[in-house]
């Protein structure tokens, strides 16, 4: 499959608040997404990962403001669509039919007083007035079947369904109008691992059938390694590292990515004491000058505390990292932890 670009983001900035009180929640984010790819976005709370996608879909509410950048969505056969300059009316036509979004809490996304069937009916009716009532019901049942739910679920109220079933309903609704891009904001965080496993494998199957692109947001890096083609790691509103999933897992370059990976105790191998990352997540209102991760970084140098490192693509690879240790101006030796492939994690058996 030739991979066209579906989404292009350039120097995207989002603030919360105005003027002097403004806090930069997403800072200078640029990336492109291929039409059949899965982009994983990893980061802790406050890293700007959710703000980023709310901004991209123009769902951001006050006091969030998009202050700069360009977002281009490529429609099949219809050319480019400039999301940031589009009117509210135009953007509404794009949302759901071309870009849809699944949020973390399905319970709060569904109206508790309505049966599931009515929610489906409304989505289909609003976006295609030509469908008859009967056709809409048939289509709803088809969509439920797609995510492995029985048609009688349409008669149920949200509270009668389990968390996993509700999240499946949200995914079915997101796919209702066959969008080209689906954004998933922590869709499995509130679920049990077994349910998470079911939903993740269903998503892979749905993508095989329908071939949509996906942006998947989570704090669980190991889940992303399984699921995504590329992973973007965010810290304090910035992209600190981006690489193909396996590459990022085997050879993380940014100290934060390494720390994040060491924060998940392994299920196999010897039990060793792990350190995690010292200190607290950043306070966006009082970011340090220089690299925002420098106060928690074991390898921080003087330069890190003075100047913010740019995101630079490593020559000859698809691996970008924003860290002075990997900058061409840096003369010293890169710490071993950040220069080698992590042999013990990369699964020697393969």
């Amino acid at each position: 499959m030739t991979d066209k670009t579906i989404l292009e983001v350039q120097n995207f900035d989002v603030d919360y608040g105005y003027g002097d009180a403004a806090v930069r929640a997403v800072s200078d984010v640029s990336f492109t997404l291929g039409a059949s790819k899965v982009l994983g976005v990893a980061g802790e709370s406050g890293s700007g990962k959710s703000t980023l996608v709310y901004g991209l879909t123009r769902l951001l509410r006050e006091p969030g403001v998009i202050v700069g950048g360009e977002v281009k969505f490529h429609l099949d056969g219809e050319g480019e669509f400039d999301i940031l300059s589009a009117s509210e009316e135009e953007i509404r036509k794009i949302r759901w039919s071309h870009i849809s979004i699944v949020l973390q809490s399905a319970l709060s996304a569904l109206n508790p007083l309505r049966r599931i069937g009515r929610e489906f009916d409304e989505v289909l009716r609003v976006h295609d007035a030509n469908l008859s009532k009967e056709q809409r019901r048939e289509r709803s049942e088809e969509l439920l079947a797609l995510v492995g739910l029985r048609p009688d679920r349409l008669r149920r109220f949200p509270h009668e369904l389990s968390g996993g079933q509700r999240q499946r309903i949200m995914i079915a609704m997101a796919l209702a109008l066959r969008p080209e891009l689906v954004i998933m904001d922590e869709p499995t965080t509130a679920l049990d691992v077994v349910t998470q496993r079911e939903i993740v494998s269903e998503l892979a199957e749905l993508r095989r059938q329908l071939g949509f692109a996906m942006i998947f947001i989570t704090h669980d890096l190991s889940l992303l390694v399984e699921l995504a083609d590329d992973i973007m790691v965010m810290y304090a509103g910035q992209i600190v590292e981006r690489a193909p999933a396996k590459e990022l897992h085997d050879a993380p370059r940014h100290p934060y990515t390494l720390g994040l990976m060491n924060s998940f105790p392994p299920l196999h191998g010897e039990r060793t004491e792990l350190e995690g990352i010292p200190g607290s997540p950043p306070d966006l209102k009082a970011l340090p000058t220089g690299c925002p991760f420098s106060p928690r970084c074991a390898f921080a140098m003087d330069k890190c505390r003075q100047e913010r490192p740019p995101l630079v693509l490593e020559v000859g690879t698809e691996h970008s990292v924003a860290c002075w240790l990997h900058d061409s101006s840096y003369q010293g030796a890169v710490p071993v932890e950040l220069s080698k492939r992590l042999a013990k994690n990369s699964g020697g058996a393969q």
Partner: protein
Amino acid sequence: MSQVETGKTLLEAKALSRHFIVKGDGGFFSKRKSIAAVEGADVALRAGKILAVVGESGSGKSVLARLLSRIVSPTSGELVLNGETVDLKTQRDLAYASQVQLVLQDPFAAMNPVRRVGHSLERPLLIHGVPEDEISARAHEILESVSLTPPQQFLDRYPHELSGGQLQRINIARALAVKPKVLLADEPISMLDVSVRLGILNLLRSLCDDKNLAIMYITHDIASARYIADEVVVMYAGQMVERSNDTSLINSPQHPYTQLLIASVPDPTKLGAEVVKAPSGGAAAFNLNGCRFSPRCSQALAMCATNEPPMVEVAPGQHAKCWLHASDAQRASVTISNKSKNEMESKNV
């Protein structure tokens, strides 16, 4: 505090059960029914040891913690604290609370938002009768024990000024203020940022070792259980389905549910490996007569649907509640008792 011998059982639950009465399926006037949130739980918490209780939501693990802390009273069963049976008919008293403390999941909700941290820390000391002139020194001391230094800086803050990780440390500190012997930690890291979780786990481990605390660590994250625990119990639908007196059940799970749980954990080192297809049904689909996991179990036998499996030793120190591991004699006894039951019924008819 008198020194306790490591490994000594401090708090023990014997066949502890709690049933909740809920509305029936058939609307407002339908008959009420009882749900066993925890059934036949046997737990022993030992000094200097961490017991991990692993289960998904609805497995009864949080109710178990509340039963042990006596916030919820059991329907049946027995609690033994320091070798003495606790009188479960009475209200929980201060003496019990000072020995068994509970730390909850959400550090933001556990603190009074309009009071300074110092207030929240000093209250339990006052209530538990620490002389007033010692209180301030004690508050400093316990903050230091959870690595929040300098203490004064934290005592004067409001909860919203602190990060989740710091607040959870304060919660743990507050639980330790009255020098308990048993600490029950209900999902203490699941609301925290990934990067600070290990810090809290390491803190629990060192508190356990230094103060010889008996800790029950409740979690849905089996990898974190493996990281800090000495013993592990897996719960499903209110029952304990597998247990081991080390972490061996994580390395070689024997119960089909534990196997499913472990296979479901995202594991980048096993990329491309065959993913177990999780049998659908959701946590709500459990069977009340036989094995509760049988409707979702891919290896279920005919008897699993009708007869509750026994707890069987599957390896030294490891037990699984599963018919697959039962001996022929155990299985045969069921067939006989079924037969006799059938005979009885046919006679009655």
